[in-house]
């Protein structure tokens, strides 16, 4: 029984990464209608950014702020120079473009840094762990859960409950009308893409001390995260947060009961959900 509690908690930790990443994807899809396949590569860039900052003498705490901004700006440049020309076209074009971008970005990093990865130490303040009775919880992992939960809820609040969020949602419904009210819709869309990308980079920084910083770190996780988004319902903010955490827990339990299936269970769930509710658990059918 104790082991089960431990696995639930570990699942929650992985769930935080799924939630942060799928949240960014959901924001981008909801607002820009782009299926952002470059998300994994941008997550990886966030981790590398933290590594570069560390080499330059700037530690983890600043990296949490600076890396998402830097990668976010990179994302906005991508949106301005490439993605914006695809608005109004079929989803497939955006998907192919971002997929190509992901391959290029990963290829460039791999060329310079190989594939083994680079070490990134846990910051001194978050070292060590607590004995919870049923398991030894590394403080850093606890921090990841709490911090990402706060970020997820803040993003949800920003989009669903503030005036800015209302503009955003309105702009996706009817951009022409919103422009008529004197709001710069293209700029808002660029900023939204930057926000989604920034969330991916933030997840990258958070994961740097746990996993290694390596060029292909986003390649596998992105597929799982897409499954999370599909299960949660494309474009649904709260749906992707909840599904992210929930799937982390389910995956954790699978690792305990039947480890061989741990990297397929998410997709089995996705198939089941698509069969029963094609729009996802929280999505509305179009």
């Amino acid at each position, binding site marked *: 029984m104790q082991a089960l509690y431990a696995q639930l908690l570990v699942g929650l930790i992985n769930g935080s990464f799924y939630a942060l990443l799928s949240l960014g994807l959901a924001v981008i899809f909801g607002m820009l209608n782009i299926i952002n396949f470059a998300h994994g590569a941008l997550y990886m860039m966030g981790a590398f950014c933290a590594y570069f900052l560390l080499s330059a003498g700037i530690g983890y705490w600043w990296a949490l702020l600076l890396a998402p901004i830097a990668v976010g700006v990179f994302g906005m440049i991508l949106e301005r120079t490439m993605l914006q020309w695809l608005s109004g076209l079929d989803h497939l074009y955006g998907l192919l473009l971002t997929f190509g971008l992901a391959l290029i970005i990963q290829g460039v990093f791999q*060329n310079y840094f*190989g*594939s083994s990865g680079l*070490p990134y130490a846990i910051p001194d303040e978050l070292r060590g762990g607590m004995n919870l009775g049923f398991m030894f919880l590394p403080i850093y992992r606890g921090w990841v859960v709490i911090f990402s939960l706060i970020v997820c809820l803040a993003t949800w609040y920003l989009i669903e409950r503030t005036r800015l969020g209302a503009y955003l949602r309105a702009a996706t419904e009817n951009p022409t009308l919103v422009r008529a009210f004197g709001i710069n819709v293209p700029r808002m869309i660029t900023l939204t893409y930057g926000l989604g990308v920034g969330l991916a980079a933030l997840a990258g920084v958070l994961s740097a001390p746990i996993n*290694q910083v390596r060029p292909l770190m986003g390649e596998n996780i992105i597929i799982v995260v897409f499954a999370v988004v599909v299960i949660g319902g494309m474009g649904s903010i709260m749906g992707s947060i909840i599904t992210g955490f929930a799937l982390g827990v389910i995956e954790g339990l699978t690792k305990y009961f039947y480890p061989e299936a741990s990297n397929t269970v998410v997709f089995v769930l996705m198939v089941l959900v698509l069969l029963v509710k094609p729009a996802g658990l929280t999505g509305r059918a179009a």
Partner: protein
Amino acid sequence: MKNQIFLSLLLGTAISLSALGAASAQDKTVKIGALSDQSGLYADLGGPGSTLAAQMAVEDSGLTAKGWKIDIISGDHQNKPDIGTAIARQWFDVEKVDVIVDVPNSGVALAVNNVVKEKNGVFINSGAATSDLTNAQCSPNTVHWTYDTYTLAHGTGQALVKAGGDTWFFLTADYAFGAALERDTTAVILANGGKVLGGVKHPLNTADFSSFLLQAQASKAKVIGLANAGGDTTNTIKQAAEFGIVKGGQKLAALLLFITDVKAIGLETAQGLNFTETFYWDMNDKTREFSKKFAARMKNGAPPSMVQAGVYAGLMHYFKALEALGGNPHDGVKVVDKMKSIPTDDPLFGKGEVQPNGRAIHPAYLFEVKKPSESKAPWDFYKLVGTVSADQAFTPLSESKCALLKK
């Protein structure tokens, strides 16, 4: 018109006859295929570095100056046996490749092993670990150069059991390699009076090991054996440190660890790990000289891993056999037989031999990862703590199930 056709036919026959004559006497062309994981979790320990090692072997053999024409092509098997065999088939059928080198990933290596046998090529494996390549699944066309799961089990495994680590829990990569390594290590543990308390099989290329580590922790085994490799091993070790596993008194046995892995983990976390390799760049003047030349040509300045060193040494021995044959007969079994009849002697692995089952034998070394304060230079990572002699490091022929031995 008729005469013209007749003449050209005659000419064509003459040309092809002369070409045939050259091929049977002194054909001095060789084509090498370096097949590896070029971009995934094993790319840094093999990959482009293995192709470079092959290139250096060609240069150092001095054969081109003697009129040989040697080409190298490389391929990416992406750790998928089906892709690996497809490339191998195409190389033999279309590219006329004579020898395939490297091939890390035991699953791919075993599959390619069959293709090479079918096409009567030569397979000099360096990267794969499974001892089956020269045991149950041995082939007259294959030489397994660098190390195998038997070496790892009898190096690291035996040393740890003898040091008091008599209860084990395995974290095993769920494919041919992990299974072979767990099997060979278990045999050593049991033979030395130890016990295996349990284990979990994890999928290849896993990012998060915390669930598995918690199970290992709960088993209360004294030693947690890592029957995995590359990125999987580095992730396990890093996360084990995070969960306080080593501090809690359990020991990690990284059964297969490469220098690139130590670099990725960082000395701070990796210090004190014990493991077995058959090559380290800083062993003697000859290895240092080769490694310096090698690192200068690597993009990230990395010294050769034992796998890359094995590609070099294996090819050097292959060239020796070709020279002894006086030309390339394009007959895999014949060349491999020659390789078995000449004793091996190269600057990287020293003196040894290729046994009748295709196993190249040489000493193996037990290393310990240095403390950060002991490391004086980049890549100065290992302390030598013991040597396993060549006859102890590999499966004794009397225990081998290889069909070639029953002739």
